[in-house]
């Protein structure tokens, strides 16, 4: 793979302060990268800095220390330059209730100042692509949860982004619906060869989608990474790969418990799970 990684975290730290003024480390010396056209998933328990990392990637929060680059740009200070480059699927669909399906899909295109006719055409194409033809003029409250998430997927892809972020995109859906939409999304990701960063609670979802899985521990550090493709090539089954990830999560959990709810320093413990790569506090 040539050229700089589309997503790069280098020694990123982010601290918040509680009401009594004590610091809370959301991320500590976090380093990882996502290569072009790669599909990477981040898994970790609640409070391990996944959402903070996501917000920093979106440019909604600024890291205290370290460097974040998205397509070679700082997402916080060079936000405008990333317009139209990043598609996002949120946990809740975040469809604007006053917009019809087609208008919601057009949201990103409108931000890019695409003319009305063209954006309706593009949105219509994506609407059809996610299987919602005939629902052009429906308002979000008239759609089911699964349909709404499909609209948010279409909204993310309509701008033809170079990078896709998905933050626990299927958590709000029932298992069957989630599975169906996940399959369709994966198809879209492969079809468009888009660089994808997935955040999820579900180990099976991560293995199902990602080529590489990053296991996060508290406070916002990388415990280990599992290369699903390499493991599959080495003959490991999906179940075995999932076990590897769960092993990493157990280590992350032990570390969190030992450090007292994430207020301490990042772990130096080296994870020695077979098939995983220990990262600890070292940048990749």
């Amino acid at each position, binding site marked *: 793979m040539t050229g700089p990684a589309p997503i790069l975290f280098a020694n990123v730290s982010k601290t918040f302060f509680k009401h009594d003024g004590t610091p809370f480390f959301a991320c500590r010396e976090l380093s990882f990268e996502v290569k072009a056209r790669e599909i990477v998933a981040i898994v970790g328990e609640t409070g391990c800095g996944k959402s903070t990392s996501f917000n920093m990637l979106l440019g909604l929060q600024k890291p205290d220390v370290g460097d974040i680059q998205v397509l070679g740009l700082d997402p916080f200070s060079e936000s405008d330059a990333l*317009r139209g480059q*990043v598609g996002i699927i949120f946990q809740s669909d975040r469809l604007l209730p006053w*917009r019809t399906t087609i208008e919601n899909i057009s949201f990103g295109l409108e931000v890019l100042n695409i003319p009305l006719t063209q954006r309706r055409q593009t949105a219509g194409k994506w609407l059809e692509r996610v299987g919602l033809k005939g629902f052009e003029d429906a308002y979000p409250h008239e759609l089911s949860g699964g349909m709404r998430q499909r609209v948010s997927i279409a909204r993310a892809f309509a701008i033809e982004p170079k990078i896709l972020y998905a933050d626990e995109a299927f958590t709000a859906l029932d298992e069957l619906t989630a599975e169906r939409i996940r399959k369709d999304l994966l198809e879209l990701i492969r079809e468009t060869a888009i660089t994808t960063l997935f955040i999820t609670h579900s180990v099976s979802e991560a293995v199902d989608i990602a080529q590489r899985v990053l296991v996060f521990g508290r406070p916002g550090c990388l415990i280990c990474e599992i290369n699903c493709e390499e493991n599959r090539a080495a003959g490991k089954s999906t179940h075995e790969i999932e076990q590897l990830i769960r092993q990493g999560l157990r280590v992350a959990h032990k570390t969190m418990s030992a450090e007292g709810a994430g207020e301490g320093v990042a772990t130096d413990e080296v994870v020695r799970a077979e098939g995983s790569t220990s990262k600890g506090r070292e940048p990749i």
Partner: protein
Amino acid sequence: MASNTTSTHPSGRIKFIGELGAALRAQQPLFVGLCVIAVLWQVSTYFLPRIIAPPLQEIGVAMWQIFSDYQQFVHLLTTGLRVFVALIVSFIVGSILGIAMGTFDEVSKYAKPLLHFIQGIPALSWVVFAVIWFANVELRIGFILLIVTMPAFALYIDGAVRSVNLDFVHLGQAFRANWTQRFRMITIPAIVPEVMSAWVVNLGAGVRVAMVAELIGSTTGVGFQLLNAQALFDMAGAIAWTLSLVALLSVYLGVIRFVESRLLAWRPKGERQ
């Protein structure tokens, strides 16, 4: 092709008639209530002197005169126009201030206490101040209406801007929409329900205040006509002018409800007022 075009018109008309019928049916309790009051009133006229309870026919004649005689109708129009123009100006000023307050904490910090202070002053005091300050009648009434209704617009809009769902704001930021785009695509549609509520509240307040202002500081308008009726002990006239004002208010409310139903068509039926 031609048959298709013509066939759409009747169905549209039928739909409109259906909607109108539904709207009228919704007002059935009001009509029933008004009928009961009318009957009770008419009964009372047999026991009370005419000066206190004039018969319905007399009130009807007085109302007919208001709507048929241009010299009288112009007073109703004048009040209506005053309220309309003042509320528009008040809405513009209140919106600018409300948006500034909702966007910048520093503006809110200083403007909010001041607006609450203004709201605490009785409308009648403003009428007295305006009579002393302004010689021009229209300016006088305009000022009173502005000072009484503008704070409510500003405070409603401030609250609405502050309560815009943060998820939607983040959506805009994540898609790298600039401030203007976020304002146009997210903030404005999100605050529409509050804006409409502010209009309903201010319309009632505006009409009442306009009445008082005209009663004290004007020689035109419904307020002035009520003063005349009082001077002549013309109860039928006083009731007729009051009812015509209520009719005017109902027309305005109808317009607001119509605009609201169009702007908030996206809301589930249960959430609509």
